[in-house]
């Protein structure tokens, strides 16, 4: 529908008339001509209609159907404010760790339950698409799919796409050709530039409701704030020239003027919850438990690494994506335990992805792996556990490592609650319950289990380290969350001269990741000028043949991370200056 300029909006001077449904005719045509379903069915029909009536946004209807979402007042208030006062268009700018994703999910679910959203698009950085899909499905029962092909724009009414993919043809045209009930943009500070492809792509989407999620609406200068708000509500901050004149101290565009007035305008379009005292989490303490692998484990680790390097740089150049992924898995597994890697070696030794000579090497490596029964990291873990007098969460990425550890720890006399993806929901609940009641150790493969309250414990052991730092962050987040009132201990077990040692160098020594607040890591990694995932970066360094090459690549990545963290600190400060106490301090 196009609206010529200056004409009054349609139906402004006409009355609104009840339009009766065409299907009424069917009821009239059939009624009393065939036997009915009986008086009970008539009464139940009436009650079914009444039960499903929707009346505005008086309260949140969706809470009872959410799975594993802890109910926080500030999130409920935010969702209602967005739905009622902001009419479904808002910038969610909570400080990190206060649950912007949950707030967006709540708004989305409420609109969906009321039949107001039937098509929704979530735009995120590429690294977060699967995380979003998982959260929307497990917590909100919303059937989102991640964009895989251009046909998905037609087939999937609830779609998650990486911004980088969606903004380019053929996706761009397909996305903009369809009306969307709701658009969610995560990490919306990437819409800071009005001339960028990102900004123009989102502006060109036809949408009824829109949520922009960012903890840092201002990245470098005030213009970015203007661009973000204008995308949502043009005119809210006046025109660009007027905005600069009134709210920006010339010539330094980073410094705001008339801050109280500006914050007043922002309150109409932005919700910013801040950590109150009750929301300030206790500190984290990091304990590093490095080990030197035993001779057999070392040999296997080196042999697997050598195989990975050879295969990675095979004669045909870099491997295709699937084979590269396989090698990453292999290298990650050997970083976990020999038990984890053995089965994959067996599988790969029969895989057509590899040449016959490679398959023979893989079979030899498998023999090598199954012959190893010792595990130095496990010994170090047991030593640590002997000194612990509290409940402990032990995380590993792999089921076979979990099974091995469970056997070892139970032999030592520990009472272990095992938690992994193969368990039913009820069994997972039971594992959490028994851990709370009478178990010493919660042994888990899943960083997830999100929403399950484990903060009665406060020690997290990373028996192995996921290469995706956000996964590590999720593990720690199981205990370092609201409700935790004691210092949290993060124990990292890792072997020297491995990929995991490199990870520790980067994440612990360079950016002190283990001491960050939940959510800050996303923003730091977001500042890395990298389109590849962190896992890919780690593998790319690890497969370099020369040690010196590896060292210098690691140094470069470390320097980038340090710069990214410094940039984040700067941005945090800027946002505090501009937005400051414009939001509400959250209390428990």
């Amino acid at each position: 529908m196009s609206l010529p300029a200056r004409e009054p909006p349609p139906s402004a001077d006409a009355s609104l008339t009840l339009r009766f449904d065409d299907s009424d005719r069917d009821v009239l045509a059939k009624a009393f001509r065939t036997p009915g379903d009986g008086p009970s069915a008539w009464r139940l029909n009436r009650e079914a209609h009444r039960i499903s009536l929707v009346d505005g946004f008086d309260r949140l209807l969706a809470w009872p159907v959410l799975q594993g979402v802890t109910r926080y007042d500030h999130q409920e208030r935010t969702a209602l404010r967005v739905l009622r006062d902001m009419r479904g268009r808002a910038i969610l700018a909570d400080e990190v760790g206060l649950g912007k994703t949950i707030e967006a999910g709540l708004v989305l679910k409420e609109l969906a339950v009321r039949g107001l959203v039937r098509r929704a698009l979530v735009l995120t950085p590429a690294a977060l698409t699967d995380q979003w899909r998982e959260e929307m499905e497990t917590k909100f029962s919303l059937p989102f799919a991640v964009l895989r092909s251009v046909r998905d724009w037609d087939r999937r009414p609830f779609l998650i796409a990486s911004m980088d993919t969606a903004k380019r043809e053929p996706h761009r045209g397909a996305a903009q050709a369809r009306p969307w009930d709701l658009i969610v943009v995560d990490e919306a500070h990437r819409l800071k530039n009005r001339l960028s492809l990102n900004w123009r792509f989102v502006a060109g989407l036809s949408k009824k409701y829109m949520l922009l999620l960012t903890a840092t609406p201002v990245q470098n200068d005030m213009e970015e704030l203007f661009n973000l708000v204008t995308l949502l509500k043009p005119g809210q901050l006046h025109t660009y020239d007027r905005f600069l004149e009134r709210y920006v101290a010339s010539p330094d565009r980073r410094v705001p003027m008339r801050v109280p007035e500006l914050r007043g305008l922002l309150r109409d379009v932005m919700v910013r919850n801040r950590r109150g005292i009750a929301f300030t989490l206790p500190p984290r303490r990091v304990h590093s438990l490095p080990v030197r692998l035993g001779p057999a484990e070392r040999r296997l680790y080196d042999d697997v690494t050598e195989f990975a390097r050879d295969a990675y740089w095979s004669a045909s150049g870099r491997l295709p994506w699937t084979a590269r992924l396989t090698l990453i898995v292999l290298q990650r597994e050997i970083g976990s335990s020999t038990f984890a890697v053995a089965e994959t070696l067996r599988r790969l030794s029969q895989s057509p992805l590899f040449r016959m000579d490679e398959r023979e090497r893989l079979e030899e490596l498998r023999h090598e792996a199954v012959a190893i029964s010792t595990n130095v990291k496990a010994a170090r873990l047991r030593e640590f556990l002997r000194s612990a007098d509290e409940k402990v969460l032990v995380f590993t990425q792999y089921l076979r490592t979990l099974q091995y550890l469970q056997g070892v720890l139970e032999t030592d006399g520990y009472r272990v609650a095992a938690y992994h993806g193969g368990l039913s929901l009820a069994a997972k609940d039971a594992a959490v319950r028994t851990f709370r009641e009478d178990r010493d150790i919660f042994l888990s493969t899943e960083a997830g289990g999100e929403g399950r309250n484990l903060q009665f414990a406060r020690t997290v052991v990373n028996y192995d380290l996921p290469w995706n730092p956000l996964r590590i962050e999720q593990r720690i987040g199981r205990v370092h969350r609201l409700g935790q009132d004691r210092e949290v201990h993060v124990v990292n077990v890792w072997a020297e001269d491995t990929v995991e040692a490199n990870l520790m160098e980067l994440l612990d020594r360079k950016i002190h990741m283990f001491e960050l607040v939940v959510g800050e890591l996303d923003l730091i990694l977001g500042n890395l000028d990298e389109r590849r995932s962190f896992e890919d970066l780690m593998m790319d360094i690890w497969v370099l043949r020369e040690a010196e090459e590896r060292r210098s690549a690691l140094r470069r990545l470390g320097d980038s991370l340090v710069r990214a963290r410094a940039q984040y600190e700067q941005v945090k400060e800027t946002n505090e200056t501009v937005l400051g106490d414009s939001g509400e301090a959250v209390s428990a």
Partner: protein
Amino acid sequence: MSDAPPLRSFVIEALTDLGAAVSDGDPLVWVQAPESVQRDLEVPARFALSFDPERSRAFEAELVAPGSYFLERLVSVVTRRGRWDVSQCTVSGTEWISEALRESGLDPETGVSSRVDGIEDELLLLFAFRVTLVSDEKREGFHLVAVSLVDGSTWPVDPDRTDRELMPHPSPEIRPDLETAYRLATEFLHLATGVEVEQFRTRSLGLLEEEVRRIFGYFDRTIDGLRESDPGGSQDLLRAVMAERDRRLTEAVERFDPKASASLCSIRGILVPTARLEIEFPDGARTESRLDAWSRRLRSLACGMCGGTEGPWRPSRDGLRCARCAATQAESARPRGHPRSDTPRRGTRAGEASARASRGSRARSRGASSGRPRP
């Protein structure tokens, strides 16, 4: 959803009505489902329901709550059934007539005398409508409208009203004039929802107007600024800004354009004894009315002040008043200790004429707005 019936009893009754064997234990409800239910609700032969999310997880039971998949499917199945029904209201004797008159405030104690001219069976038709108002929000209501094809009268029925007095009635011989009854019901619904629909429209258009003004303000000033800063500048840029403005306006219109719709959920025929009455009021006026044993509503009566047709009634020497107008009248008759107003007082001829005129104007305007004559 605040007036909705309790969820648990609804679900149990609905499953039972669909042929499932239901056992209500605490905390779970166990269901043995026949094939048709398994197919329609996508459930196994035996399954458990829980109304509590935590328990639903712990026991792997289907969760029943607003927005849950199971409840959505159940509502969808149940609303496809029970779309018509014929019941019979059976009463013995004629006691109900005097009871209904007393409940309506029209008995000898209030100076009203009445005579029963006859009792006959009448078919009332009950139309259930779901009314939906949508812009960027959604508001829904459920309305039951009773229609008498004998005298063409229509009135609202409380959706909470129980079915206790009703018995199933074999329906093959019932062939009412549904077209006429439906027309009367929809006309009534237009009037009954008119104020709410108008308020919704006004609010939505107010928001749209505000949005449109802001969009025009922003883009026009931006365009002016571009022209001033660079009078011979790129026309392409100006065109792009204008295109963006038009796109935003279109989006705003689609967002706030109010829509009001109604759908017929079901129809019920109720065969009911109906008395023809002649009623004489204290002021000597007489009127004929009909009173059925189910709704017990006296038809053809209207308040002398507001024109409303809802009892209970307060007859007086000034004429018939509904309870609300009578209370207002009593309130305004109290001495206030201030000079008398020039406004004609209600209850006097001048006052009634004035009230009628204003009612008529309102009614005409509503009738015109709906495009249908007032019944």
